[in-house]
């Protein structure tokens, strides 16, 4: 049954491929991002729990799905994808943004050293503090990291809009994705540029993360500056048409 479905799927995909190719032969339309994989390739499934389920527990749908996957072509899993319990998508994204020249090994080690530095600083503070203060000190580097980035996200952004031959900075609502990106970008830029020459990245980054966690520091200031500019240009808000 699965094999018959597969043949049908292949025929469909050929047709779809033909349609795709027809579309892309239209003048004025160039496909910028493309994949080496054809349309018949399925995405890999990275889920230990799913694979460990014994055959008796699978529903009809899942059994069909599993059968289908045996005969279909599947893309290779990307190197950065793990089924590790310690994997965090935010940390991975941040590491990728810190990476230069494809040197993921270095970026990852810098991230690890930063988390370690944050942890050690918090532990020192914890041991030096009195009993009441100890309850308030957060020692988990991951919560500190997530909270710091959340504190750095701007609520509203500015976009240059061309009107009457001039570019105006118009206040515009930002999507979640854009806000997270801006927070990470500002953090990395701050740590790369505004620091004494010999300080290492983990040292500076851990310091900035701790400051952002406490809602202080240059990155938070930059967010506030963005908000102030948006407030100042409030009159131009009607230039936005979306």
């Amino acid at each position: 049954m699965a094999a018959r479905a597969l043949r049908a799927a292949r025929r469909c995909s050929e047709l779809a491929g033909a349609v795709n190719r027809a579309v892309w032969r239209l003048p004025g339309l160039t496909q910028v991002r493309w994949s080496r994989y054809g349309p018949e390739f399925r995405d890999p499934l990275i889920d230990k729990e799913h694979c460990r389920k014994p055959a008796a527990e699978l529903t009809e749908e899942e059994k069909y799905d599993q059968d289908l996957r045996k005969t279909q072509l599947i893309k290779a899993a990307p190197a950065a994808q793990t089924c590790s319990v310690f994997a965090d998508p935010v940390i991975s994204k941040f590491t990728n943004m810190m990476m230069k020249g494809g040197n993921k090994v270095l970026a990852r080690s810098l991230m690890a050293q930063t988390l370690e530095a944050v942890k050690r600083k918090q532990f020192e503070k914890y041991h030096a503090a009195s009993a009441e203060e100890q309850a308030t000190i957060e020692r988990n580097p991951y919560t500190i990291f997530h909270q710091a980035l959340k504190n750095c996200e701007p609520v509203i952004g500015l976009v240059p809009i061309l009107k009457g031959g001039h570019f105006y900075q118009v206040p515009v609502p930002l999507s979640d994705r854009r806000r997270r990106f801006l927070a990470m970008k500002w953090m990395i830029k701050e740590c790369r540029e505004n620091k004494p020459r010999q300080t290492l990245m983990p040292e500076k980054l851990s310091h900035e993360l701790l400051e952002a966690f406490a809602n202080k520091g240059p990155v938070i200031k930059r967010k506030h500056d963005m908000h102030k500019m948006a407030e100042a240009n409030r009159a131009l808000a009607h230039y936005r048409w979306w």
Partner: protein
Amino acid sequence: MLKGVRKLIPRVHKLDPGCLLRMSTQAPRSITTHSDDQLPVQRPRAICRTPESDPVKTFGEACLMVRKPALELLQYLKNTNFTHPAVRYLLYGEKGTGKTLSLCHVIHFCAKHNWLTLHVPDAHLWVKNCRELLRSTYNKQRLDQPLEASTWLRRFKTTNEHFLSQIKVEEKYIWNKRESTEKGSPLGEVVEQGLMRVRNATDAVGIVLKELKRQSCLGRLQLLVAVDGVNALWGRTTLQREDKSPVAPEELALVHNLRKMVDNDWHGGAIVLTLSQTGSLFKPQTAYLPHELLGKEGFDALDPFVPILVSNYNPKEFESSFQYYLENNWLQHEKAPTEEGKKELLFLSNSNPGQLERLCAYL
């Protein structure tokens, strides 16, 4: 794997239920006062911790896991015959298995039993990255290293303070036209002279080693010679003279004197050595066996010795190390205490103590 100037007390792991060996820390830290295994005097010890990864700052204490290699060594040391020539014990093993910390445990034991400990925290530091090389005044063929020698003298002074006044020098030493040390003066004067006149520091080290050897042969004290990274003494150096010609290790006065010290021509103590690939020069990363790291010359010089293999954690030790981290809240990740997290750590570290520590540092 010794980096920078280190001060301090060995780090920790927990141990098989029963023996948790703790060392006392400085007085202001009242969090941990352990009356069972306290050292009489606070001794800053140089080992493998940088000031940033100081366990006293993070945990407020420094503990050590008691493991089989260290226990074996302690057994041998308890049964040393002080009339026989000094036995050489060599700790070897792969990277990160715990050779340096086993050495620290042994040093702690000997210090508690009032032996005089002669500890060289990393012999590799003497054969690379030396900023000043002077021609030795004592022997024209050899080279002096004033900075390394004075660092070592300072450390020796702090660890063995109470012995320095008791040991008397047996010979007269003339430093220069105006200064000399008379026969019968305490060893502390030689050390002071080396620290004050940095040019004579290397010679001071040589004198200290010679005197200690002599005194232990006469039975006045028990001497423990502990050298970490002993394969540096017989390898190659990266040092060069002014005319860019390479320097062989035997041309360095410090190395020459230390080689004489680890020879078994004296009695009244023991010699405990550690091999180390991290920090070694011109050796492949996978080398860990004695004949690979020491080379033919070193092996022949150290032969005969008692080899002691230090290997990765067995399941019980891993469990106990993991529990120690959990109890001290070092593993902050929410998934770390789960079964899944533990299995993953076991797999990623392969029960290697060093690797486990590095993994747990950022979790």
